[in-house]
């Protein structure tokens, strides 16, 4: 796992990376597994600087999907910290670079929400609903955005 240079670069630029191994770090695995309710491997958590979980990836993913999920978690972290322009930029980057991953429609939805939170103008929500009329029509995110049409 973690063989992809893009993944390596993204992790090194955005996080302090830590690993607990189920056998080699057994005590730490139990302790932090209990703390964060991590019962399976691989489980990847994105924590803020206070150790609060913001995103969870459980199970193996191919490189594009893994990177998109890592980017999605980092974007959600900015969003939850009220950094809406930064979050929108991160969400839109996912849509642009990884449109065919599961993260794509979720990122499109939250990009619109981030713009709305920045501007307090509902136009981005309507534009997001319109965007879902031409792509990701079968996703749950399209259903969620349909109320804005």
């Amino acid at each position, binding site marked *: 796992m973690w063989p992809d240079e893009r993944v390596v670069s993204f992790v*090194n630029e955005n*996080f302090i*990376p*830590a690993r607990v191994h189920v056998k080699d770090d057994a005590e730490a695995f139990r302790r932090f597994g209990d703390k*964060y309710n*991590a019962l399976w491997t*691989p489980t990847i958590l994105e924590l803020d600087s206070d150790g609060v979980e913001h995103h969870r990836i459980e199970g193996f993913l191919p490189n594009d999907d893994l990177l998109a999920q890592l980017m999605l978690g980092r974007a959600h972290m900015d969003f939850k910290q009220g950094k809406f322009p930064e979050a929108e930029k991160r969400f839109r980057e996912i849509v642009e670079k990884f449109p065919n991953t599961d993260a794509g429609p979720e990122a499109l939805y939250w990009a619109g929400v981030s713009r709305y939170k920045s501007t307090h103008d509902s136009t981005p929500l309507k534009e997001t609903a319109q965007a879902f009329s031409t792509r990701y029509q079968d996703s749950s995110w399209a259903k969620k955005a349909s109320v804005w049409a």
Partner: protein
Amino acid sequence: MPIQFRHDVDAVLKEANQQKRPVLLDFSAAPM
């Protein structure tokens, strides 16, 4: 170049708090 994972999670969390930097915590069974 692989990711330089650290294994002292307590130290990482403390450092993250001091540096205001997010943490990626990987629970793994992959060969070390």
